[in-house]
Each structure stands twice: as structure tokens, then as C-alpha cells.
């Protein structure tokens, strides 16, 4: 995983709530056995017309949002299916930051496994950010994970909360499994006791 560095980038706006993972990456693209190449299918059913051309009505197709790495979206983002193909598609498309009032649990976890910083803000703060993007499409925000800060040109910046463990992993780009395996002795000890208590589960 790439370490998450301080960056400034175009912030794209999806002013919709309950954006579900079925929309983020529709099921017809889940048959692949690889992790890569999902970005071209991101939001497929909204993004493209039936003839395969770009749907000009879809917000992420706006020229001002080209190259955006920050996605500002409505409440309950990423609800529904557990498919990690959703954050794979989001990251592959180019986003590394999402700002919303809330996320579905599994999606939220999946983001951090894939180098995506999912920031939670209050409704009032989100409204301000949305208004700033609406007033100035193509506006660039700065995201500083180290200091847990977002800075915007119109002064709508804020600090955000994040679990220190997730923060550390994003900043270092560290492998979760490697970290857990440092505790392999404790896992083995747990299993010894578990086998004694519930032998039939190990038959």
C-alpha cells in the first residue's frame, strides 16, 4: 500500500445520500479474479449511457472534476454489499479521500485497507464544503492527514477525528497482516486454550 501523503487536489461533489456499493461497482464487474482495473467501471450505470458514451448529466463526468482525488458525498456512503471491489474501483479511478457525514461499516473498513482516507464530518460542515464546490467547481482542497486537517480556499477548513491505528497504517502504508502476525504467539496460546474448552470444534 502507498503511504498517504499530504496533498492538494480537486474535490468532486456527489450530492446524493445512500450511495450504495451496487452503484459504485455494479455486479456484472465482480466476476474478475484480479484486484486491479475496476476504475473504468466505477459508477458504470450512472456514468455511461446505454450506448456506452459518457452521461453528461452525471456529476463525475463534469470537466471541472477531472483528476479529482477527493470525493465529497452525502450521508451513508458505501451502504449495502461488502464487495471490496467498490474501494478498489474508487482508488483505481484516482480518489484517495472521501468526505461524508457517515459510511456503512464494512465499506469504511475496506477503504482503509486500500489507502483511502474516509473522513467523517458533521452535516453543517458538509453543507459548507458542498456549497464551496458548487460555487467554484474545480476548487482544490488540501488534505493533511498527519495534522488531521482539511484546508479550503474559502476558509471552510476543519480538523477531523481518526482512529490512531488507522492513521498510522495509512501514513506508513503498512501491511495489516504483518502487524497482526507479530502477535502469533498470543494467537497460538489462545488456540491451545480454545481447543481444551471446545474440543469438538476442532474435530
Amino acid at each position: 500500500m502507498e503511504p498517504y501523503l499530504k496533498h492538494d487536489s480537486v474535490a468532486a461533489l456527489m450530492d446524493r445520500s445512500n450511495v450504495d456499493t451496487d452503484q459504485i461497482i455494479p455486479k456484472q464487474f465482480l466476476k474478475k479474479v484480479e484486484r486491479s482495473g475496476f476504475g473504468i467501471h466505477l459508477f458504470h450505470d450512472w456514468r455511461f449511457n446505454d450506448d456506452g458514451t459518457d452521461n453528461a448529466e452525471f456529476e463525475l463526468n463534469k470537466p471541472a472534476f477531472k483528476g479529482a482525488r477527493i470525493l465529497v458525498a452525502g450521508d451513508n456512503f458505501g451502504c449495502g454489499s461488502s464487495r471490496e471491489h467498490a474501494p478498489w474501483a474508487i482508488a483505481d479511478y484516482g480518489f484517495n479521500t472521501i468526505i461524508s457525514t457517515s459510511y456503512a461499516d464494512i465499506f469504511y473498513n475496506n477503504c482503509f485497507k486500500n489507502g483511502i482516507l474516509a473522513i467523517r464530518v458533521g452535516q453543517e460542515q458538509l453543507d459548507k464544503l458542498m456549497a464551496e464546490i458548487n460555487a467554484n467547481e474545480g476548487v482544490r482542497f488540501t488534505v493533511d492527514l498527519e495534522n488531521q486537517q482539511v484546508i479550503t480556499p474559502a476558509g471552510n477548513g476543519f480538523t477531523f477525528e481518526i482512529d490512531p491505528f488507522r492513521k498510522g497504517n495509512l501514513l506508513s502504508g503498512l501491511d495489516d497482516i504483518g502487524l497482526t502476525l507479530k502477535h502469533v504467539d498470543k494467537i497460538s496460546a489462545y488456540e491451545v486454550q480454545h481447543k481444551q474448552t471446545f474440543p469438538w470444534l476442532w474435530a
Partner: protein
Amino acid sequence: MQALEYAMKKTMYEKIWDSHLVVDEAGQAPLLYVDRHLMHEVTSPQAFEGLKISGRKVRNPHSILATMDHCVPTKNRHLPIADPIAKKQIETMADNCHENGLNLYDMKNPNNGVIHVVVPEHGFVHPGMVVVCGDSHTATHGAFGALAFGIGTSEVEHVMATQTLPQKKSKTMQVVVNGSLSKYASAKDIALAITGKIGTAGGTGYVIEYTGSAIRELSMEGRMTLCNMAIEAGARAGLVAPDEKTYEYLKGREFVDGVVPSPESFADEGKRKACEGALAYMGLTANTKITDIPVDLVFIGSCTNGRIEDFRIAAEVAKGTKVAPGVTALAVPGSYHVKKQAEDEGLDKIFIEAGWEWRDPGCSMCLAMNGDELTKGQRSASTSNRNFEGRQGKGGRTHLVSPAMAAAAAAAGHFVDIRTL
């Protein structure tokens, strides 16, 4: 019905949590031990690939039960899979399970079916366990008093390599449902009513424990349906205690409005906008009576409602009826065991005589990966769990119902209030 955060000494969730903590140290996420790991073909290949690349092994192969369900055709199963990408995914699953010595119920195995139907059939989950699967519908197994939740593919790899998961402790929510259900009302109706009341994100960050006399009266199948739908209210998991407790009696309310909601009925602007969008997508007008809405396709199946009890009650309603002209009706058992049991009871004949298609098991129309799907503008009555845009086919319109509602809709060609049957 009432949802409340409870200040108790230890909730069932906390008991399971505490008994599975392997590491709990400051400065890092608590590590939770995983007893059972369920698998299917869609969310696992990239995890096996990651494991191979890093030179790691599956720590406890016996903790894993795997099936093939999402991409499998529900007819002409003896023929090779026509879709080459789906075929490769199925073959990859078989190879991965073989290489790692995992128990796989493949497409032709008589134990095959939807993972969350198959697992309880085989008693693979017990009360007090921690159960995970790369699938959000894993909440199903909370019916057994097990902490069961969906995970992503990176976490699938993590569990295979370490038998643990770094976890953040959830908040707990108790949902009390008291009273008795009328004849055709079911766990599905309770689940939809709860979701309607607390919203699709109402349970985010929580594990829900369902209690109350109506819950205690539910069969195991009913409890599975109920817990399966916990995720649709945003919850991480649902739990039904295997032991009984007494809670304050809360009188049940009537949950079905009977008409399409109007955007004006929402005070919150975001919800109003969402409602307008939903009505446009669904091709519905506010205040239309639900029973006036016609259906094109009826689907009974899925890990929510694809068990024997679901086909029994649907067959009871379908018996002696005929599928309405222009309507397609699919009965897709959750597993071969369910299919065989239903056939032993003669339920298949009831469906076939009523004009239904009696299929082989699989996820089928629930997410329409296998070729069973709605075309643009078509409307379904579906016993699955999600009415998301395009889930059952691009432009398809999904109405979530119980098996009895589905069977009644197939015969009438429109929705029916089953309380009046």
C-alpha cells in the same frame, strides 16, 4: 417496537467479544479470534492471490466452509457456464480450495447452495462463535446467537493468514418486538418494518440484539431472515439470544402504510430529495395504493428467504392459483437440500402447476449476476434483501416482500395485502 441503547452490565455482544479477544493493547486495534470463516467465489479470489504473493498459508483450514453461489446458473447446470469470466471465477474457487485443503461444496455437490442457507443446514455455526464471510449477508447467523458479520476481501485474506481480525468494538442496540404475528405476516415483515423505522443507516456502528415475544415466537428460519436484514438497517450484525429473557412489554404497531410515500412527508430536505429520486426511478406516484402496483417478475429465494419454511408458506398461498398472464415467477431454493426437502413434500408440483419455474439453487435474482435478471423498467416482487437501483438488472425496479406476499403477487399480477387472505 422500540430501539434503544442499553446500559447493562454485559450484553450478549460484549460476552462474545470478551471471550474472543486475543490482543487488547493500547495503541492498536483489538484482535478478535475468528471461529468460522465462510466463503464464496466472488469475494475470495483476490484474497487467495494476496496470500500466495506474500508466501502465507491458511492457518486453520478446518475453520472454513466454501460454496459457489453468486455466479452459478440456476438452470441447465449440467452444461458448461456460458459466461467465460464467470467460468474462470468458478474454476479459480475450485483450484484455491483444492490447493489449500478447504471444504468446498461446488456447483455439482448435493450440499451446494447459497452460503448462508447451506451453513446452518450443516450446523457449522454454534452459539457464542465469531463468524465472518466476505459477504454482507453474513449477519444471518446471528440467529444462532453467534456474532456474524460481513468483511471485505483484504479481511478475508487477513483471517485466512491469522485467524483473527483487528476490530473496533461496535455499539449495541436492542430492538424489542412484542405481540403476535397474524397468519401470513413473517420475520421479513418485522425486518422491513424495523428498517423503515430506523432507516437504512439507523444501525450504523451498532450490533442489534433482537428481543421480545414476537422474536421468541419466530422459528429459526424466521430468525435467520430477521438477522440477515440487520445489515439493511446499517448494523454490523444482528443477534437473537439462544436463551430467553423477559423484557418490558412494548405493544406492537402497524408498520405498513399501504401507500407509496410522498416526498412532502419528510421534513428533512435530504430525505425529501432521496424520496423524489426513488419515486422517479421506481416509476411510482406518491400515494398510489401498494395493492394497485402491477408486477412483472416474482422471485422467491436468496439467503434472506430461500429456506424450506419460505417455500412451504409460499406454496400454501400459491396452491391452486395460476401465475397471472405476463408475469414470470421463479422459485429458487437456497440449496439442494432445500430443493430436495421441498420436492419430498410435493411443493415443487404446487409451484409448477401454478406456472412457476422451479430452479436449481443459487443467489439468482437477488443480485442478478448469473443471468437471471430484470430488464429496464420491469418491476419485481422479490424475497431478497436489497431494492437498490439496478441490483436486479439495470433499470429494474425491486419491491422487497415476504414469501407469502410474493406468492400472492404472482397470482394476482399485482401486490396483495396478505393480511386479507
